[in-house]
């Protein structure tokens, strides 16, 4: 696997970075290296690796009064036969696909617009970024209030489309509001990544395509998108990870309701562990989510490497 730390990233003509210790000073240099890396490594072990491994351990047991009793694969067996778990998986999939697709398309469209020059560009960009800096809970409460019965202005506006019931009280409406609220919050970050990638494309390339007779759509499809593909993959992987782990917005907007129609996997895990006291089952869900995240994370890292390779040419 290639690494973003490869010494040839700066280009074939660049001098190769020294990768080993200074000649004649290797033992001391080695201890300095260990000393510099150790704090970060210890911190990573303490707050990431140990808790992750411990969750794996807990997923094979039940916890009571501080004691873990091994139960083998029981927690996983229960998950596989739980209709509620599979419903959460399905809700997460629908929510995740809708969130990623809409965020991606909207961010790409906005990035293309912001890659041109127009009056008030900085102002509009700032406006789009405001939701991104708000906390998930604050954003969620804002969206919940906008759909309050008798008081929320969006409820008044959209209520008739849902048979005049509270929009958040309908499974479709609640899921749609969640998706829109998360897109509203996340699109700025995706926009930033794509815009940065677009600005690395040389004007000459676009100009050359134009001279060859390519229209705007053709240039976008055949020139722009292929050149920023690694960034687009990063954006999609990042958004996918975000959708699997989303919980703050869900808790503050719908709390998983109506019924359990918006109980995504992360909320299912939280409720099993925290509300129902089943730390073992909650950990088992966490392990499942870990592997789902791992797939997206590997895709993300691979795309990052690809991006850095292209950036170096």
């Amino acid at each position, binding site marked *: 696997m290639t690494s973003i730390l490869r010494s040839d990233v700066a280009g074939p003509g660049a001098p190769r970075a020294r990768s080993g210790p200074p000649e004649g000073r290797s033992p001391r240099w080695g201890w300095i290296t260990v000393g510099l890396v150790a704090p970060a490594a210890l911190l990573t072990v303490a707050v990431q690796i140990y808790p992750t491994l411990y969750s794996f351990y807990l997923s094979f047991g039940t*916890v*009571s*009064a*501080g*004691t*873990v009793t091994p139960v083998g694969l029981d927690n996983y067996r*229960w998950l596989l*036969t*739980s*209709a*509620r778990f599979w419903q959460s998986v399905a809700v997460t999939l629908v929510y995740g696909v809708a969130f990623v697709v809409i965020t991606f398309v909207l961010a790409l469209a906005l990035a293309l617009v912001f890659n041109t020059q127009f009056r008030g560009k900085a102002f509009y960009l700032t406006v789009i970024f405001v939701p991104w800096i708000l906390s998930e809970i604050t954003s969620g409460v804002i969206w919940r209030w906008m759909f309050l*019965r*008798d008081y929320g202005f969006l409820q008044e506006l959209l209520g008739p489309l849902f048979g005049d*019931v*509270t929009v*958040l*009280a*309908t499974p479709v409406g609640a899921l749609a509001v969640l998706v829109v609220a998360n897109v509203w919050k996340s699109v700025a970050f995706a926009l930033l990544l794509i815009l940065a990638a677009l600005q690395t494309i040389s004007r000459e390339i676009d100009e050359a395509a134009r001279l060859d007779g390519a229209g705007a759509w053709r240039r976008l499809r055949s020139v722009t998108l292929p050149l920023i593909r690694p960034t687009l993959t990063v954006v999609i992987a990042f958004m996918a990870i975000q959708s699997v782990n989303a919980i703050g917005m869900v808790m503050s907007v719908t709390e*998983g*309701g*109506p*019924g*359990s*129609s918006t109980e995504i996997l992360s909320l299912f895990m939280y*409720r099993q562990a*925290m*509300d*129902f*006291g*089943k*730390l073992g*089952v909650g950990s088992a869900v966490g392990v499942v989510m870990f592997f789902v995240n791992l797939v997206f994370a590997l895709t993300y890292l691979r795309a990052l490497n690809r991006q850095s390779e292209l950036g170096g040419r």
Partner: protein
Amino acid sequence: MNIRARASVPALLAALALGLTGCSGGGAGDAGDTITVWGTWDMEDEASGMAEGSVALREMIEDYEAETGVTVVYEHVPFDQLFSKVSLAVQSGGDVPDVVEVASQEVFSRPDVFRDITAELADAEFVAQVGDAERASCVRDGVRRCVAVNIGSTAWYYRAADLDGVAWPTTDAEWLTVGEQLKAQGKYVASFYAGRDVAGVEQTWAPLIISAGGEIFDADGQPAWANAATVTVVDWMRRLLMNGYIPETNFTGDFAAGEQPFIDGAAVGLRGGSWSAQFVPQLSEGLASGEVLVGAAPSIAGGPGHVTLYGQGWAVPEGAANPQRATEFLAYLMTPSNQAKWAAAAFRIPTNALAFEDPAFAEVYAENEAFYSAIQEQADTVGITMPTSPCYTEGLTRLGETLQELMLDVEADAMAALSSVQDEVAGSCR
């Protein structure tokens, strides 16, 4: 493996570090002189309906500290988080408080979390002074796991004048008739909270299901709500909702949304609790003036209408550092004068019979006699306590979600949905 043993390693290192740097925890005395208390009363609250109760508790704590020399470290935890926080702390072997406030029905759903304090309190004076409601709240099978400083009860209120000469409906059939009459005047019969959580089931659904002859958990604590009585109640509620006799927000809103139609005057009645006068100003004013009355709970399919009883419990979690001082503090809370102070401040009914004679409560009782006597009579005659179950929280949460789904999808097969979730919870109830 013992999590506490693992947790003690960093604690030991921290202690060593403190020792090496010459730090010591002076001032607080030894652990025997301090107890930590987690409660839902916010000591900094000076504005909400709970403020008077908070002041009463603060004064009790100050008096206790002055009398005993024990330092009480109080921590406010929101009511909807307290039970899960303390359960998780005990379960994972973390730091637990010495005393915790807990709704009585939750105590027996997690006997592994709360200490058996029968022996420690066997000789306490209050034990001979409290009534059946207190024992029903905190003692099961001869084991005491909490003390209930007062009893609260769900209650149905109505504005008599808004009924326009019609009597408050007491049966399921009367609700439909009166609902139609009030609808013609643009009013709902009643608003209430029947949301998708534990409280929604405890306060609204459970009394109705039990009135119809059904049950929520069986004698072994296993889920048993998939019965004909529950379906009868669901069908009745659906008719009320579909005909526009009750607002949709009863099922989709939060506590406040369940009260708002009554506050606005859009609903004639309100299912609240004996405590609601703290939170709904129109209610306390109406009760004082006689404009608002306490009505009977709905009787379903000929059964008696029920109200749900809550003991405002205080318990000692397993793993508490100072259990002896903790039980002494519980006994202190149960004295007649303290119960009187608290009940007077928070519209509750004391569990200690002697508290009724205390001037602090006797005066308030006399001023609100109609309210207190009606609530007390209902508590004595039709009050129910929630059954014990090892899957109490999960069961009621999942049942609440299912009932909400059934109300929002009136075509759905109620028995099939109830059976499905009953089977699922039963499968995980271990």
